[in-house]
């Protein structure tokens, strides 16, 4: 049955993805919920939170707020916080509650900006979509709202799509910076991870953008169209176990299940293997090869592994419980935080 999970558990939802992009910005992030979604976002999907809590708030909606659509009360509450902080902006992130009552986010944004006197961005997340959708929404909102028309600066590079949910490491930004500095870039801006709003303002000045996960694709295309910034799609990092295994899988049939960009980059480093890329998340046609699959159901994943005859499956360990032990050769653990909520022990350059 579509939507029925008997072995797996749900992946990180869109509101977690959006909150992840805003996390390192100097923002007041408000999750428009009754509390549980915020608990999930912070307590489970944001690994930076336990060591470095940021201004993330629940709207604390109660039944009558939802039934009567009392957005004015939410704005009043936001004002109380914005009056006491020096945030650059506020981000309001949707959940199933505003989705059911059809909250008018444009009106909410206007009301909040007028009353609080700071820029407000909204992300119409519903909790029914996956984290990459939310990340994409957040990046698009940020670039559309704040990026300024400024000249290109040589040596400046932008990275889009780096979040702990995608790369399963809370210091992935440092590794990415160091990787691209070695390539000769003098200034690397990793949007949404270790960078504040200023990097978004200056995004048009990057001479190149690197898209390290599918959630960065739409924003990179938008930046190219609007400011002419070219982009390259690649993820130069992967978990240690996967990075090491690629050498010894020559001539073998391999299934890689991860975010599409990371999986394709890993495949590019395995030219002698017969590799299929699959993902439960966004799959861009431009990166797909024959046989690549967007997995939509648990049963489909079980069948893919069972019928594929793979010598190796590179995938988060958590999903191993969904498939029969004799259905594949070896399982190589490639953590995907958005799937299991577990971080990689060590992220390596490919």
């Amino acid at each position, binding site marked *: *049955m579509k*939507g*029925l*999970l*008997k072995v797996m*558990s*749900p*992946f*990180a*939802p*869109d509101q977690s993805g959006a909150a992840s992009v805003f996390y390192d910005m100097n923002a007041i992030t*408000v*999750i428009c*919920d*009754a*509390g*549980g*979604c*915020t*608990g*999930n*976002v*912070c*307590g*489970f*999907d944001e690994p930076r*939170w*336990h060591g470095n*809590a940021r*201004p*993330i*708030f*629940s*709207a*604390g*909606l*109660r*039944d009558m707020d*939802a039934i009567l659509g009392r957005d004015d009360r939410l704005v009043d*509450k*936001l004002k*109380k*916080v914005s*009056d*006491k*902080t020096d945030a650059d902006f506020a981000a309001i992130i949707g*959940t*199933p*509650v505003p*989705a*059911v009552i059809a909250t008018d986010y444009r009106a909410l944004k206007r009301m909040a900006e007028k009353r609080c006197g700071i820029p407000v961005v909204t992300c119409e997340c*519903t*909790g*029914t*979509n*996956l984290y990459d959708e939310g990340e994409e929404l957040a990046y698009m909102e940020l670039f559309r709202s704040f990026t300024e028309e400024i000249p290109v600066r040589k040596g400046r590079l932008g990275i889009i799509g780096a979040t702990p949910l995608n790369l399963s490491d809370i210091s992935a930004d440092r590794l990415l910076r160091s990787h691209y500095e070695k390539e000769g870039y003098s200034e690397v801006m990793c949007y949404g991870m270790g960078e504040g709003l200023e990097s978004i303002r200056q995004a048009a000045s990057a001479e190149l953008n690197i898209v390290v996960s599918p959630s960065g694709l739409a924003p990179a295309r938008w930046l190219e169209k609007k400011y002419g910034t070219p982009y390259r799609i690649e993820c130069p990092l992967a978990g240690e176990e996967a990075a090491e295994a690629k050498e010894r899988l020559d001539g073998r049939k391999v299934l890689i299940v991860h975010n599409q960009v990371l999986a394709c980059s890993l495949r590019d480093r395995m030219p002698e293997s017969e590799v299929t890329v699959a993902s439960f998340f966004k799959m861009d046609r431009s990166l797909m090869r024959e046989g690549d699959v967007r997995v939509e159901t648990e049963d489909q994943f079980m069948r893919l592994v069972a019928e594929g005859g793979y010598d190796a499956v590179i995938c988060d360990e*958590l999903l191993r*419980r969904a498939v029969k032990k004799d259905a594949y050769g070896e399982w190589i653990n490639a953590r995907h935080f958005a799937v*299991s*909520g577990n971080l990689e022990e060590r992220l390596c350059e490919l």
Partner: protein
Amino acid sequence: MENKQAAYYITAAELSELGFERLPSELKSKDHLIYSSPAALSFNSPGAQGFGVKRAGLAVPGSVMLLVAPACCGRNTTMLAELGAYADRFYYLLQDDTDIITGRHLNRISKAVAEVADFHEESTGTRPSCVMICITCVDALLGTDMERVCRKASEHAGLPVLPCYMYALEREGRVPPMTAVRKTVYSLLEPRAKKSTTVNLLGHFAPLRDDSEIYELLRSIGIKKINEISRCADFDEYLGMAEANFNIILNPESRHAAEDIASRLQIPSIEITRMYRLDKIRRQYELFAGALGVEMDDSAFYSEAEKRVKEFSSKHAGKRVAIGECLNADSFELALALTEYGLKVTEIYGTVSQERMAYIKRLAAVSPDTRIYTNLEPSMLYYDSGELECDLTIGIDAGYYHPDAPNVPWNLEIQPWGYRGLIGLIDEMEGVL
């Protein structure tokens, strides 16, 4: 000039003076955004630490849960699924964008329940004793008649199906989710002949500590079987709870369940409370025995605890303590107890309620400068642990605010109770001081 970036607090004396009727807005969670820090996690997501609705619903032995919700509501269950005891007990029917508007998912529930029951039987060799259907804010807003949906699913799948309402929107309503789920987990009990020597302890989803004196005291008055849902080895033993002569409510959130049991099974109940003040523990046992019309001799337990308190007080009087609310105690009652034992309670991170005002008034008399904070208030973002130093913190949240001070989390799932609970706490405090 007001420091706009300072955490809000009020002293016990100031709060006592104001009274509950003039409670400052900062202490009312409905008046402000809810700050999400690790100290507030148990409020926003009760299941993240301990028992939330999902885990609580599985208190019925042999049950499984079908969460019918958008994927986001089941996300933190990934963590529970990794715990051995729950790995095969959670199933999900995910709602999509259309479902949450039209409610069409309701048509799939019966089939999903049957599929889950069959799959569970196939993979574990045991048919579930019942299927708990956990629904969330979406169905609260859609006004779903879940009782009816469950009846239909039960007829279709041929096993009991019960609703668990994880309605976060109704957290401060008449029947909050953790109260409703306590009623649900006892709702499969059916009338049985009563046994005068059997009682049920209602209130927690994990048992009391084995050394709790309440077991011995109950046995001393002729009780032979003391049931707790968490100690029931199987569904049959669970059904045996219907034989109890009376229920003992240990947590106010079980009152609603006890009322339901009283009306359906004619089992009366009596409520007692966890406390840490010696004289109050003794007084409560006196009243309890009086209500039952029996004599109960707790003097040995009292003396043991009194001796331990005296030893502790003589060694540690004057030590400064900060008390949180993520712990197995009422923060304010515990603060009062520790103050009476000679400690200096400098800070409490708690939720002020009308019931707690009695403790706050007494605290104002003996420790007027104790600062009262609330974990949920946005200004806690600016909490400065250096402003008031302390020698000890109790509760996970208090430990978060003072990371360098020794901490007693005091929030194990196995529940402390009575004199022995107090002794256990003193032992742990001593262990870190």
